């Protein structure tokens, strides 16, 4: 095959099974497993006084009821640590008061939904019946809800954290105070962005199977990191890692929420399986997902900016307060990302960012697609728009004045990124991205169209937002590639898949590197039995990390194949090529040997086991020089390699949104949505565009429809799809996309990540577009028609400022 697969919109190999309903998600496995339900705290903040499970014992089909006391007793008897606090995954020096929960509440509950009692029964129906009959007595404590209340600290979430502050960090570059004082212009913005959540269509689930004879545990989990779940389960259960396998089956979406681990259920289900010596399965329902998974996005922000007449930022001083929920198991990665990715494609003269991460009596906050970047971009882009409005300049021009230019790459911001490495942009051409976006959106014409519409009394507005995304963070990923004696190629990598098409894009890479047809390559992800060293799928890293590891491992296999084939064909490996699964002499295609045969030859045999393998037996090869396996060699046509980056590689993107609001009903319609993004060369353009589409839809949801509605008692009022409004097709606009491909200099394939791209600038771009449509300054997102109606009234009453529209002749906001 002479056509390269890299860069082709190849149809996905996994689709045949998915569209015929024959692929297996977590709940499609373990039909005979026992079912599990949990008694979860109905209170946001309470002391646990008593648990009376006697009512549950009468339920037909009940198998077991477990509380914290049972975990304690088990640890004592078995040397496990299931009663210990759940791990702090990512410690950081600035996280001075971390707190994690327990698999089952010990003596206190800190959010509605926290698991208190585990019920195991013949099936989920019966488990719910039994759970309903467990009586838990609580002593109600006043809850802390909302960043503002957490900040004021009149009440605390954790008694020993009197100011509710889990972490505090200050990063700065340059002398912000002097630069601010010296700046010709200054502005201050107070911003507010509210919680949403990943909300994959498939919730979490865990299935565990204990083999008592072998002392080994197999765990299936709908997770984004099977290797880390395995490690955590092994640690908690007191098992050697080698005695625990973890497999991620087909996963119905993750978007970040499934990178968090170990969930209490990921500890308890295996533990119960071992204790009961039965297969045990827990599959959460939608309400459970709302109150016992994770949310993200809530921050209050204060920005002070000093700038010159061209809108160049001379000093940027940011403070924000991040709501981390009741515990900090994932550390403070999200606010760290906000503080660093806030800079976007710009180079402020001096930058200071100080933030506090606060406890509230609500669900924990862990990464959701974007993972802190949307909040950072929101702060920066609202600031850019405010500067443009003040100066009466075109908003795209102001941004352009602040761009890091291509000749300044690599650009060192002087800060530390979320991977612990310096924040250095490796590549990117922001002026080119902007030029493409302006062309795609017809920037000047669109602004003019909007202005003309407004002159007629319609409320049409245009918004623009830019971002930079650090992708492909380490520590590493690895891959194993083997050519079997059948000629089929099996590829395994340890990270996981939740719909991103890895089974196809990774196969494209391997097929290209090895010169085999795509259909001969099979990729497995997320299975510790197949590849045991991995980190996980998050931070738009999978293609960069595993893609490169697979390329490197494939190259090892190729090199070995050419060497063995060279011996067989009596040719120099440098004169050989692999085409369509056959190794042949360049220019002399008749002189060839199938890779399948090379695979056979790679393993010198005493005993043939089939027709093909006879070629590798000792009398058939007739090779008597040196040992059959050389000193630095191994049998088999396979290779393992790892890719470990020195730092992240930075993708970028820019979006334009055009909206129209109804002057009477305040309904918000998206007229156009344009995306330009640069993630370097695309392995499969169809898959990348699909990722952008999905991100944009989540962005629309997060800007206009979704928010977590907590009341002052810490009750989540909208814990169902009826009231947490994710967009249907009718709410998502047609999405126009163009690409730029700036290679990354940091990895062999030159690629960057794209998974989160679509959602990152959405709050910013919609705030900008609606502000432009209404002529009212917008500082708080998300925004619903009711919110807009109230904002209009506040504006009329003089409580909210107007957008400054200075007459412009060149298409700037008018």
């Amino acid at each position: 095959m002479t056509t390269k697969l890299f860069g082709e919109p190849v149809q996905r190999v996994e689709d045949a099974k998915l569209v015929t309903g024959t692929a297996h998600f977590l709940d499609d496995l373990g039909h005979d497993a026992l079912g599990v339900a949990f008694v979860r705290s109905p209170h946001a903040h309470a002391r646990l006084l008593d648990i009376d499970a006697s009512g549950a014992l009468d339920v037909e089909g009940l198998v077991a009821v477990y509380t914290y006391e049972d975990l304690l007793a088990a640890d004592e008897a078995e040397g496990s640590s299931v009663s210990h606090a759940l791990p702090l995954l990512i410690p950081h020096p600035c996280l001075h008061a971390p707190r994690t929960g327990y698999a089952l509440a010990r003596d206190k509950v800190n959010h509605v939904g926290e698991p208190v009692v585990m019920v195991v029964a013949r099936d989920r129906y019966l488990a719910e019946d039994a759970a309903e009959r467990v009586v838990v007595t609580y002593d109600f404590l006043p809850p802390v809800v909302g960043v503002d209340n957490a900040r004021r600290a009149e009440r605390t979430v954790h008694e020993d954290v009197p100011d509710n502050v889990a972490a505090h960090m200050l990063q700065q570059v340059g002398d912000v105070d002097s630069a601010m004082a010296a700046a010709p212009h200054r502005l201050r913005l107070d911003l507010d962005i509210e919680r949403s959540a990943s909300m994959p269509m498939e919730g979490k689930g865990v299935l565990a199977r204990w083999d008592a004879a072998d002392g080994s545990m197999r765990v299936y989990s709908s997770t984004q990191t099977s290797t880390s779940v395995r490690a955590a389960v092994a640690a908690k259960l007191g098992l050697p890692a080698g005695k625990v396998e973890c497999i991620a089956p087909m996963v119905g979406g993750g978007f970040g929420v499934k990178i968090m681990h170990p969930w209490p259920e990921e500890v308890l289900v295996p533990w119960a399986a071992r204790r009961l010596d039965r297969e045990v399965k827990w599959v959460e329902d939608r309400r459970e997902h709302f109150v016992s998974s994770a949310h993200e996005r809530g921050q209050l922000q204060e920005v002070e900016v000093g700038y010159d007449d061209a809108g160049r930022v001379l000093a940027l001083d940011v403070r924000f307060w991040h709501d981390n929920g009741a515990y900090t198991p994932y550390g403070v990665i999200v606010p760290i990302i906000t503080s660093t990715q806030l800079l976007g494609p710009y180079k402020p003269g001096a930058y200071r960012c100080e933030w506090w991460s606060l406890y509230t009596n609500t669900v924990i906050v862990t990464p959701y697609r974007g993972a802190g970047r949307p909040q950072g971009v929101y702060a920066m882009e609202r600031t850019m728009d405010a500067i443009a409005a003040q100066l009466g300049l075109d908003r795209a021009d102001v941004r352009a004045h602040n761009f890091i230019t291509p000749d300044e790459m690599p650009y060192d911001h002087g800060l530390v990124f979320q991977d612990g490495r310096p924040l250095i942009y490796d590549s990117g051409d922001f002026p080119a991205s902007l030029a493409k976006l302006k062309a795609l959106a017809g920037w000047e014409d669109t602004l003019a169209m909007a202005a003309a519409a407004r002159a007629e009394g319609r409320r049409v507005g245009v918004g623009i937002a830019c971002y930079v995304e650090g992708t492909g963070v380490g520590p590493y990923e690895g891959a194993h590639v083997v050519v079997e004696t059948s000629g089929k190629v099996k590829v395994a990598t340890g990270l996981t898949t939740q719909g991103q098409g890895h089974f196809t894009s990774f196969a494209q890479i391997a097929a290209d590197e090895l010169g085999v047809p795509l259909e001969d390559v099979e990729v497995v992800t997320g299975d510790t039995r197949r590849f045991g060293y991995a980190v996980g799928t998050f931070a738009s890293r999978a293609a960069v990390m595993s893609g490169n590891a697979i390329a490197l491992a494939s190259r090892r296999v190729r090199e070995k194949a050419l060497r063995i084939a060279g011996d067989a064909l009596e040719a120099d490996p440098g004169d050989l090529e692999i085409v369509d699964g056959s190794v042949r002499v360049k220019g002399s295609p008749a002189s060839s040997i199938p890779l399948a045969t090379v695979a056979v030859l790679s393993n010198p045999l005493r005993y043939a086991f089939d027709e093909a393998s006879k070629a590798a037996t000792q009398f058939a090869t007739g090779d008597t020089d040196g040992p059959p396996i050389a000193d630095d060699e191994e049998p088999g046509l396979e290779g393992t390699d790892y890719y470990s980056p020195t730092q992240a590689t930075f993708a970028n993107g820019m979006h334009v949104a055009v909206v129209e609001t109804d002057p009477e009903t305040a309904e918000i319609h998206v007229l156009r949505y344009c995306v330009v993004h640069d993630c370097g060369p695309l392995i499969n353009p169809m898959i990348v565009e699909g990722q952008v589409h999905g991100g944009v839809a989540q962005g629309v949801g997060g800007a206009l429809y979704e928010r977590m509605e907590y009341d002052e008692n810490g009750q989540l009022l909208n814990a169902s799809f009826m009231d947490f409004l994710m967009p249907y097709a009718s709410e998502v606009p047609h999405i126009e996309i163009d690409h730029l491909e700036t290679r990354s200099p940091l990895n062999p394939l030159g690629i960057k990540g794209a998974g989160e791209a679509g959602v990152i600038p959405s709050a910013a771009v919609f705030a900008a577009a609606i502000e432009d449509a209404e002529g009212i300054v917008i500082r708080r997102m998300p925004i619903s028609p009711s919110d807009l109606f109230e904002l209009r009234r506040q504006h009329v009453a003089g409580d909210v400022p107007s957008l400054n529209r200075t007459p412009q002749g060149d298409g700037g906001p008018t």
Partner: protein
Amino acid sequence: MTAPEEIEQLHAVRLRVNGVWHDAQVPARRLLSDFLRHDLRLTGTHVGCEHGVCGACTVLVDGKPTRSCLMLAVGARDHEVITVEGLGTPEAMHPVQQAFRECHGLQCGFCTPGFLTTIAAFVEENPDPTEDEAREAISGNLCRCTGYQNIVKSVLRTAEITRDSRSSETSGDQEAAEEARNVSVDHDGRAT
């Protein structure tokens, strides 16, 4: 309420699923979605919310798209149910399954079966939909992965494949009908 220590009464249910009659004994409260998935092991139908909003559980009951999480198995007695498995197999796909694959109409695939049954029924009634009609037809199912762009394309492609194979069949050209079902499209939706 049934006393907890009593075993729940079972009810006899006879229904036809994907063309096969099944007899079963189920508790009254067994949801049709759970019956299909766990009693019949037809796990292609997925459960996303159990309150009728997401649509992942949509199956065809007597040809009409229906939320299986909002039906009791006993309520499906004597009815005909078609699930995603009944639309087609990897070897012999329904036009809608083929269209989704060609148009990248799915990513994680969890919501997909609900869309497939809904669209299969829609195209039966609307053989030549406009893009707006296609979008409206799928606006009762949630997808978190695709942003719907390619699902809309998949609806139009389904209609196209169906029309092409029908016109080939009508003209007696079985081969062309077969071919129409196998034509690939590039990612811009152009047939290749």
